[in-house]
């Protein structure tokens, strides 16, 4: 195993530890805060299910680079993960429940600024909107669930002790499910970037094959588990008690509301089910569990007239939400500078942008007036932000149109060489027809990513993206993952010129 890779892994493990110390509070904070579940029980169950989720549910992310996928160099991934972890850790030290995803988003924007990449404003605005929508929806769900539970309690006339036991078990079951989801969804944040350089080989234990990726995710899961066991108690008590004194039933409602909201925003299955029946669908946006929990607690507080809500710590939490991405972004920027210049480690793969004739033709077929671009044809840029400025100044292009030009102009040479000896192509993942299409373009070299994708789409309908509808989302998502895999495998590098 390469020692350097392990060193790079350390920042992912630190991020995992920070995530465990912080996000476990979202799942079990209210249960521990209301004294219904002991911290030790919560920590053990949470660690166990986080690992289980990471190994079994997280493997689906094996072909993606996770949310840090835009970062194109291992040194950059290491630094971005470190910056996110440091920001999360700092907030944890202050006892504030922050979102690790927020820290990661902030750190990626920091990397974009450092590497001269354009930040997708539509994706960013979607994420920012979700940071507002998520707590509001969680508050509404919490109020509805609380009212429903109150009615059920009245109707069933359950004994106080049995009710207590039911709530306890409910908290544990919902908490275990929440922990599983935490492991499955967030492991990509922690370890996703290291998948291409995974140092582990497949292992056969008692006749069961544990893949290298599963071992990597288990390591990440263990880091999260250690974070839960060693450092989450303080944040758990903050979430549980400092904002509003919660009854055990309210604690269950909060955890349930959080799970429901995460499910509503993340379930492709639900979206497909609604779309198949012609019903309106919900946008699938990655949301923060921290914000869902705080929203749910606030919803219950307001339902009771808002008298019991402690507004001062709530203000602190809100400030934490605003500060986390900023702190992570600034930290990432400075760390990247440090790693790049002091340790001389590449933190970003240089990307060149060139508007050549092929790009101009393709843009014309897409309906863009290329006359305005004529002055820029043939120009080469190594910084997307500079190209963006040029597009605005010279061609009067901004927003989505400018981003499309930059996307098309990105040079990402690929050479389809299926006869290579060290080919890392996952043939089992591709359909037979897709492999035939790949063979049909074998020996060809493509300067832009879209050119390869176009050639594959012409060769087989199985390489064609479908119209962006909720029903086609799963198809398009998997196809994009496969295309990214092909791009990575056949990329022209120093070892594969």
């Amino acid at each position, binding site marked *: 195993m390469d020692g350097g890779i392990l060193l790079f892994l350390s920042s992912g493990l630190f991020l995992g530890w920070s995530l465990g110390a912080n996000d476990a509070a979202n799942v079990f904070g209210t249960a521990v805060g*209301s*004294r*219904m*579940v*002991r911290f030790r*029980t919560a920590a053990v169950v949470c660690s166990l299910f986080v690992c289980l989720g990471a190994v079994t549910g997280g493997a689906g992310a094996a072909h993606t680079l996770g949310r840090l996928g835009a970062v194109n160099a291992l040194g950059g991934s290491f630094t971005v993960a470190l910056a996110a972890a440091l920001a999360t850790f700092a907030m944890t030290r202050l006892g504030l429940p922050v979102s690790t995803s927020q820290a990661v988003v902030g750190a990626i924007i920091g990397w974009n600024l450092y590497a001269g990449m354009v930040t997708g404003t539509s994706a960013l605005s979607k994420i920012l909107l979700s940071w507002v929508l998520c707590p509001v929806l969680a508050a509404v769900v919490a109020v509805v669930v609380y009212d429903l539970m109150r009615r059920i309690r*009245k109707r069933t*006339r*359950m*004994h*106080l*002790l*049995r009710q*207590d*036991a039911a709530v*306890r078990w409910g908290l*544990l079951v919902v908490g275990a499910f929440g922990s599983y989801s935490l492991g499955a969804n967030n492991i990509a944040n922690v370890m996703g970037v290291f998948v291409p350089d995974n140092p582990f080989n497949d292992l056969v234990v008692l006749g069961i094959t544990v893949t290298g990726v599963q071992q990597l995710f288990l390591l990440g899961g263990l880091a999260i588990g250690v974070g839960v066991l060693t450092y989450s108690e303080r944040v758990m008590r903050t979430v549980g008690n400092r904002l509003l004194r919660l*009854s*055990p039933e309210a604690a269950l409602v909060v955890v349930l509301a959080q799970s429901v909201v995460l499910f509503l925003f993340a379930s492709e299955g639900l979206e497909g089910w609604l779309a198949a029946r012609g019903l309106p669908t919900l946008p699938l946006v990655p949301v923060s569990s921290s914000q869902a929990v705080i929203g749910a607690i606030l919803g219950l507080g307001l339902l*009771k007239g808002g008298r019991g809500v402690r507004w001062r710590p709530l203000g602190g939490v809100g400030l934490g939400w605003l500060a986390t991405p900023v702190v992570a972004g600034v930290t990432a920027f400075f760390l990247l500078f440090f790693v790049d210049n002091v340790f001389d480690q590449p933190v970003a793969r240089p990307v060149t942008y060139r508007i050549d004739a092929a790009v101009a033709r393709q843009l014309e077929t897409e309906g863009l007036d290329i006359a305005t671009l004529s002055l820029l044809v043939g120009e080469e840029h190594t910084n997307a932000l500079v190209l963006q400025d040029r597009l605005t100044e010279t061609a009067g292009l901004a927003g989505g149109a400018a981003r499309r030009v930059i996307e098309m102009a990105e040079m990402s040479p690929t050479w389809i060489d299926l006869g290579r000896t060290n080919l890392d192509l996952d043939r089992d993942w591709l359909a037979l027809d897709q492999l035939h299409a790949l063979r049909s373009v074998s020996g060809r070299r493509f300067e832009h990513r879209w050119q390869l994708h176009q050639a594959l789409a012409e060769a087989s309908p199985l390489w064609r993206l479908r119209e962006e509808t909720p029903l086609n989302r799963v198809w398009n998502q998997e196809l994009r993952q496969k295309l990214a895999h092909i791009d990575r495998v056949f990329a022209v590098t120093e070892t594969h010129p």
Partner: protein
Amino acid sequence: MPFFGNTRSLERKLDEFHDTLTEGSLVFREAITAYLDDAEDVFARKLADIDKLESRADRLSAEVEAALYSQSLIPEHRGDVLGLLEHGDEIIDRAQTCLQRFDVERPSIPECWRPHYRRLAEASYQAADAAICASRRFFREPSAVSDFLVKVQHHESEADEIGLDLRRGIFSDQALDLAHRQHLRYFAETVDRVADVAEDVADRLAIYVIKRQM
């Protein structure tokens, strides 16, 4: 982490505790009636019964208390439930103390005042019974507790009125000497005390119910 089995066993103990209190209050009424009827052997039997019931209530209360603490059950309502058990236990304690005083001091109650003592014992019993019912309902149906609290208030006021009338009558009875009057007044107060304890339980329950419904 308790399983539902443990919970059921604890529920049974709580039910048994309330059954014991109910039985104790019935025994209290029957023992006073027996004393007023000069049925010595019945009174002695009832006195022995209440001793056993009081010990059982103490044991059950201690067991429930220990389980609530050791298993960290109902953290939100543990204090209230323990207070309720303590005050519920006080009802049977008072009833036992009252009967023991009758046994030890053997007050000589003139025939003309006996119906008053009977009515006083009945009102105290009714107040205690309603308080025990309210306590039982608190665990399953808190919204129904208030009906019983009204009954407790009613019977406690009734006991107060009867007790006051009795004391006034005793002290205006010229056939009795002062020592005898004071002795009879003391026993009127002792029987009335059971209703007072029932009222204490009701007062606490009224607050606990509000807390549970919040």
